[in-house]
């Protein structure tokens, strides 16, 4: 069992040993539907063959002047066969389509759950676009795999085989041409499959490239226009779209050369010739020739279906592989359910902590590692101790590793070397629930969900928080007033990525969100940079009260806040170069003094 940050007790387990088995286990979960589908397919193929044979009877009875009785009987049989076929068909197509929808739903559910269970390291490395492609297009592709591809292929194979059996009932010698045809078709299909595979891959890759490139250009349109780089972007897009066009044409060329269709054309002529020859020998009747031709006619649509299905199969397998790859990506964190779950007091100790973003790197993600592997460490040998309730300010140049340091505390990432203790217990020994539940974070990049303001504030707390508590939190964060200025108040929906709100407003909502979750340890990463002094005053006062008794890690540009912290950590290039109170550092550190002489 792989490690995971989040699991659900009653989740269905699928077979992850290979792509094929994974698909199989998804489909076999609904054996009833599958069985119904197979049975009705068989019924359909039989009904179809029966139609062809009875049509033959009808002809024979007319040619041999058997009168109306034979004809009437044959016609009634044909009606019965068609109606039977229709009934089988309806059950059949519903069964396979419902199966497809279930598989799609379950695959999506499985992927989603596995995404939730992955650590932040994993998510940090993923491109959102790529992940979304897997969760949307690839999952839909899985449903196309079941229906129509698997459905019509099973049908095709049975409609190829059942007529053969039926032909035997006419005369076994008629089998020669169809069997030669099937053998040739088998090899032709294999070749077609081999030819199509690389082209299909290319088609998909070029489309993804074009899409991603365009998305980036549009996201950065202000920069594109600001630097008048439209021609360069157009060149890039034209290049990508051209690559897709080339792949598209190549796919067209491969499908144009679909040999089974040629074989089928030959089969009709040669089969007819052979049947005529047998007729001349007096071996078969006219009716049998007609039935034989009708049976050959039923082979037409399977051959056409296979043309499309082979492409779908290939795409589906590629999609399934990508989904499974994502599900199987190892994550290095575990939710540690059995770990310590107790009320935190709030003592924080770092002991010789080192960390690098490349430390878990597996192939694809290795940009944090340089050739000698040394510079890959973002933090090196960090040690400090914060008593419960203390405020620790972290100071240092941009990129020194301040934000990274705070992310180790709630195990967004795990340390490479050394350890971090909260209340004398290694963070890795805490239950993840308990750990994260008691550490509140306000990030630099504030993310709000496109839900109502009330739901956003209540996000971190338990379900059904009373409105009064939400409002109290908003009041503490100085957000109540501006929230009430919206026509819908707390029920206002926030737009895409919270764009409706100003930076300061978003920050205050994030603060309210953190307040409401009532954490023992608070991490504030530059969370008040875009707020004016008045608001800042109010928030600071609120914070001052709320922070009392809570250990706080603080990254800020406010000199006054730095100065009044209990402990100041001065970082440079991933190392802790000095620590102490403001007065101590002013006395000891030239770098530290430099910050303050400017003002």
């Amino acid at each position, binding site marked *: 069992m792989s490690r995971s940050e989040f699991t659900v007790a009653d989740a269905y387990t699928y077979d992850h040993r290979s792509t094929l088995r994974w698909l199989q286990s998804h489909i076999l979960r609904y054996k009833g539907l599958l069985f119904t589908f197979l049975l009705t397919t068989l019924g359909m193929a039989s009904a179809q063959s029966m139609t062809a044979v009875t049509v033959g009877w009808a002809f024979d009875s007319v040619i041999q002047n058997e009168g109306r009785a034979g004809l009437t009987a044959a016609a009634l049989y044909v009606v019965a066969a068609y109606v039977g076929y229709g009934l089988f068909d309806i059950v059949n197509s519903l069964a396979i389509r419902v199966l497809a929808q279930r598989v799609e739903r379950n695959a999506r559910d499985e992927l989603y759950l596995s995404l939730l269970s992955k650590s932040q390291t994993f998510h940090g490395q993923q491109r959102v676009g790529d992940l979304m492609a897997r969760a949307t297009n690839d999952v839909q592709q899985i449903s196309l795999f079941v229906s129509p591809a698997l459905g019509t292929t099973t049908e095709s194979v049975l409609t190829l085989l059942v007529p053969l059996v039926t032909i035997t009932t006419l005369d076994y010698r008629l089998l020669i041409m169809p069997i030669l045809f099937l053998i040739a078709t088998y090899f032709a299909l294999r070749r077609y499959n081999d030819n199509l595979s690389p082209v299909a891959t290319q088609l998909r890759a070029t489309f993804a490239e074009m899409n991603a490139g365009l998305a980036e250009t549009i996201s950065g349109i202000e920069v594109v226009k600001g630097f008048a780089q439209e021609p360069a972007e157009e060149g890039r897009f034209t290049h990508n779209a051209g690559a897709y066009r080339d792949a598209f044409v190549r796919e067209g060329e491969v499908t144009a050369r679909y040999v089974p269709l040629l074989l089928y054309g030959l089969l009709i002529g040669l089969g007819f010739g052979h049947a005529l020859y047998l007729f001349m020998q007096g071996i078969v009747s006219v009716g049998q020739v007609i039935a034989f031709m009708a049976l050959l006619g039923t082979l037409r649509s399977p051959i056409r279906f296979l043309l499309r299905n082979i492409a779908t199969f290939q795409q589906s397998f590629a999609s399934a592989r990508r989904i499974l790859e994502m599900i199987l990506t190892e994550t290095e964190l575990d939710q540690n359910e059995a770990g310590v779950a107790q009320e935190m007091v709030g003592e924080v100790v770092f002991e010789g902590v080192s960390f690098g973003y490349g430390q878990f790197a597996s192939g694809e993600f290795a940009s944090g590692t340089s050739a000698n592997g040394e510079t890959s460490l973002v933090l090196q040998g960090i040690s400090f101790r914060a008593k419960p309730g203390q405020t620790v300010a972290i100071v240092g140049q941009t990129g020194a590793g301040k934000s990274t340091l705070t992310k180790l505390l709630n195990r967004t990432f795990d340390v490479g070397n050394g350890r971090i203790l909260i209340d004398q217990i290694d963070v890795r020994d805490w239950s993840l629930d308990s750990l994260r539940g008691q550490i509140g974070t306000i990030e630099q990049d504030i993310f709000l969900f496109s839900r109502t303001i009330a739901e956003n504030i209540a996000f971190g707390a338990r379900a059904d928080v009373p409105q009064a508590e939400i409002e109290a939190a908003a009041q503490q964060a100085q957000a109540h007033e501006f929230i009430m200025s919206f026509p819908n108040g707390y029920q206002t929906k926030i737009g895409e990525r919270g764009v409706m709100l100003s930076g300061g407003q978003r920050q205050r909502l994030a603060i309210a969100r953190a307040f409401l979750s009532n954490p023992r340890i608070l991490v504030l990463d530059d969370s008040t940079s875009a707020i004016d002094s008045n608001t800042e005053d109010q928030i600071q006062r609120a914070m001052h009260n709320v922070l009392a008794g809570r250990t706080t890690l603080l990254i800020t540009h406010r000199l006054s806040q730095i100065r009044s912290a209990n402990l100041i950590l001065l970082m440079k290039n*991933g190392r802790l170069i000095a620590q102490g109170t403001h007065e101590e550092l002013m006395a000891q550190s030239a770098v530290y003094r430099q910050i303050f002489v*400017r003002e």
Partner: protein
Amino acid sequence: MGITGGLNPEEYDRNYSDRELVRRIVRYFRPHIGKVLLVAAMVSLISILATATPILISRGIDTLAANPQLQLLLTLAAVITVMGALSWGFNFVSLWFSARAVGDVVLALREDAFRAVMRRDLSFYDQFASGRIVSRVTSDTQDFATVVTLTIDLLSQLVLVLVIGLVLLTQNVPLALITFAVGPVVVIIALVFRRLARNAMQQAQRALATVNATIQETVSGIAVAKNFRQEAAIYDDFQDVNELAYRVQLTRVAVFGSIFPLLNTVSGIAVSVIIYVGGLMAIERDISVGEWYLFVQGLTIFFYPITSLASFWSQFQQGLAASERVFALIDDEPLVVQTANEPVGRLRGEIVFDQMTFNYSTGRSAVLQNFSLTIPAGETLAIVGHTGAGKSSLVKLLMRFYEFQGGDLLVDGRSIRSLDLSQYRRQLGLVPQAPFLFSGTVAENVKYGRPDATDLEVETAARQLGDGSWLEDLPNGLQTDVGERGARLSLGQRQLVALARVLLQNPAILLLDEATASIDPLTEAQVQDALATVLQNRTSIVIAHRLSTVRAADRIIVLRDGQIIEEGSHETLLAQGGHYAELYTTYFRHQSLEYRPW
């Protein structure tokens, strides 16, 4: 990305008449007329062969029933075989050339759509979500291709219907009429189906869009969910949405899953009727056995195109709707239009806002009202004011990102409406409030405005900022991969890259919109030194966030609701004790060392 795939109508959408739509589509195919005609010819030939085969077989059967001659029969079989091979050959030629024609047409359409998007000013991007724009350019154009392939398919089937219909009529009128009688039945079923299918399809797509949006949001906000340990709650939400989508899909499945069996059964009953009636006629010798056979086969051939017409119709309409969306995107006009393309040399940098009036969109209150401001060449101007006062808007207007409604904006005495936009923008250097980085290395991002810059120039520009020690913090220096949107850099680092990018461009006018907001106090001090030299000999507009920046400016203007309410130097303004003094206490007090709110 097709996530919420251009399902919902946008404001610029319009309805094209069918004729207009066809005209537009045809125009794209005109350059490929040769290929199109060839494909059409091939497709017709295939249809004719498809009809000829059963006719020949029926002749063969007649010969069998009457007086079988081996010679004749073998010739017949040989002809049918050759026709099978020919049909494949025609099919090959038609697919080969239609892939080229369609590929080229879609490419042309995509390029047009892309160019149309690039032409648009920023008001367009404010209004429409980027995912939607992307899906119009990539997915909707793809659906357009589907229309074309389907049209070719449908046309060929229509030819087939006509040919086989004629042949049947020449054989026997009553039987032919019975055969044609199924047509209306199928059409009625198809019409009912179309309505159901359309509804079911739309609902299914909406449900899918909701599921995908939910996933998208989870993926983007996963850090928050994890910090608050809310996985269970959002998983519950997801399951609800996923289940709902499944249920909606079931409706679609029920509609689409029953239509073909239904149509097949109708055709089966028709076949039985033909067999019976035809059989009776054959008994009476009204028709030959071969003709009877031809009708039985002909019905199937006749039927197939009609059912597929019915089933592809919704796909076809979807494709048409997609084409409509693409054309609407292409046809919409940008608001920013230049009156002339006067060349722009190196600018001196004198800027005059002359009685300018501006709002972001009609109906909104004006952001600027008769706004006048003169900035002499070489001046460093600081703009301060509350959030929403219009500071960023001034800068964006200067960049000509938006069209203004009244007055004029003159640079070096010329209206910016008359200038060559590319050349003009290259003279301006903007560091926006939120820095955007493209995926790639730091160096590539610094070079963005000047792709031809040498490594040395890039390095020099980067080192100008804060003694360059920020480069040492990057794991691979200038070659560090910044990740998607710069996610692998800290926020401050992203701003430094954006600054270096502008420095390398060496613009005549520098526009800094709170450009150092996320940079730490240590680096800030050093960046200020660098900026001081850069700002010295060029016109600069600095929207200040930091006290130190404001102090260093030649002149400060205080903006409120789009009006200048005070101007002067830091000392004089502070001494006046007016709005600036108030702003100072509001915005900058907390940046000072003595600040203590409680």
